[in-house]
């Protein structure tokens, strides 16, 4: 009973504290600067406890922008592997959803969900900051609800 209450609180705190790690796998920069714009006064992602962190070992949510190119595949997989467990992936922008206009290029291997499991898709070219924010919050919902993401 008591333990359950603690568990509930911890899960709730997972929803309130979201540390985001951003990987660019070959995006055109459009989505990246929109992610940066999240931290301006207008969108102010910090009010939801969202923080951009520098090391994947601290991260809860992986933001991926851009189609996966040949050379950036390994860094993406490494970064995903390094994230500790309750983790979710948000793919931002139409290129990371499907490849976008670059889908037929020889150097683009495909969308992000060919390589790592993606929990939330945010469309748009480039995605609007509000939508990115919404995507991150949905990922937080998934993080605190889905049982298999929790190891204990």
């Amino acid at each position, binding site marked *: 009973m008591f333990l359950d209450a603690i568990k509930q609180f911890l899960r709730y705190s997972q929803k309130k504290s979201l540390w985001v790690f951003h*990987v660019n796998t070959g995006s055109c920069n459009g989505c990246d600067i929109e992610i940066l714009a999240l931290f301006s006064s207008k969108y102010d992602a910090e009010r939801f406890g969202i923080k951009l962190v520098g*090391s*994947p*070992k601290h991260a809860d949510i992986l933001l991926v922008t851009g189609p996966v190119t040949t050379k950036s595949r*390994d*860094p*993406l997989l*490494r*970064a995903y*592997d*390094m994230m*500790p*467990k309750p983790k979710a992936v948000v793919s931002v922008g139409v290129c990371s959803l499907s490849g976008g206009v670059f889908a037929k290029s020889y150097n683009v291997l495909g969308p992000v969900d060919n390589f790592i499991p993606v929990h939330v898709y945010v469309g748009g070219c480039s995605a609007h900051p509000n939508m990115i924010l919404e995507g991150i919050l949905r990922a937080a919902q998934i993080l605190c609800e889905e049982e298999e993401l929790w*190891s*204990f």
Partner: protein
Amino acid sequence: MFLGFSVGVLFLGALISALFYRINSPKFHGSLAFLTSAVALYFLNLTFFEFIKAGEFSWHLPLFRWIRDFINLDLIFKANGLNLFFALFGAYVSVGINLYAIKYMTHEKEGFGRFYAFIQLFIGSYLGLTLSENLFWSYVFFELTGLCSYQLIAFWYQSDLSSFSAKKAFLMTHIAGYGFLLGALVFTLSPDPKVYQDLILAGVLIAVLAKSVQWPLYTWIPYAMNAPTPVSALLHAACLVKCGVYLLFKFYLLLGGFPEFWKNLLIYLGMFSSLMGVLFALKQADVKKLLAYHTVSQIGYMVSGIGLGTSLGLASSLFHTLNHALFKGLLFLVAGILQQATHTRDLSLMGGLASKLPKTTVLYLIGAASISGIPGFNGFVSKWMFYQAAIEANHPLAAALGLFISTLTTLSFIKVLDTAFLGKLDEKNKQLSEKPFYLMITGGIILAIPCVVFGLFPQIAITFLINPALSLLNLREVNISFYQLPTVLIGALFILFLGLGILIYFTWLKPKEIIKETEVFKGGEDEPVFNPTADDFVADIENRLANFYKKADPDQYLLKICSFIEGLILKVYTTVKKLEQIWSKPC
């Protein structure tokens, strides 16, 4: 009686080693030295128990009776608080280091007889110096220690560097001898030493500066590091460099206190050389030289503590002398292990050794925590006593400097820990194993145990070792109940054990589920990691203080003075020669 034995057995051992120098076995000579020092320690302990029971007593050996009317040359060993204190820790440290040396010296090919003869001779003469009541014999023993140091530094006498270092050390410590001689002569010959105490103290001060490596005469000690490590540990960390401190205490006893001017001089000279030592230590990349400069800095605390003149100050000085012998000896032993394991003394070429030498790392951590004054180890207690004494004696600058130097000490030992023990393991050290070093580690453990024990229960050392010396010096006994707050102590232990329990649960009972091994994050690519060198660790400080380092090295000024004197003598010589020519010119 036992007093004489304890010194005599070491001289006997030295004689045996010298006579059987042809037996080219490190085991034989090493065990002999270990045995003799252990026997000496045993005898000293017997004496100590007797001293505690019955109070002061002395052992008298009449010598050179025919000259007695002129000067008293009897060999007198006296067991009082001060003498026994210095003798006991010297003997204790030498036991540990001799045990260590048995294994260490097996790497050599020859010269075991020579080495151990001089080691035993050194321990004997150090004990003789500390126990002797007669100043003449003290002087003889004092010079003998210097001679042994010369011989031991020049152990690899074929190498130019070693012989040069030995000569340098010998010359500089010889200056100390003259200072001591001056002090002793004035003291014995003058009817009232109080009148000439300035002269006496000047002599003693020179002895202290040169022998106890204080500014500006410490320049021989970095060179002395070219000796084998047991020598560095025993002579240049534990015993030889304490001779000067011992002399200060002895003259404090003989003169019954120092005048105000000398006290202040000692405080600030001690703190100044301490600061110089630690600043030079910060930039060293050679592990033994770094330790050598720390010897300079730590002895500064002792000299400064004597200068404070209060009972807490002298107690801190005495306690720090003891502690320094223990932890610095230990650190040198660790440095020796590192040197033998990696065949280099350069910190930059080591790295990641903690995974291969875990026991050595623990020993190092104990030594480093002690010297940098982490609470719970002995260095903290003596340093704390020093700060408290300094601020009580209204010398806040000394207290502040002491604290500051302590943080710098911490920094330089963190540097050693990081660059040598942590980081990435070097390719050539992959095959390293700790097995061959077990005997050496045992020697280190002998020195490490008191570090922890005195850190947690400093009352033991203070009641049994320091208070007798203080009462001899006519000072109030100090009484530290160090951890007087049961809440804090119980709380600390409680947190520690609770936390350790949780950690063990996390790491050993549940590792599969929650701990996952991945690569190090290097920006996503798999790049090789190189260790930053020891210089990188303090690059900014080195840059910032580059001018200081260039100007503050006293060696260059000493050389200038020497060449000036040389020029003077040359001038006198040529003038005399000219005069002679004029004289002897046939008219």
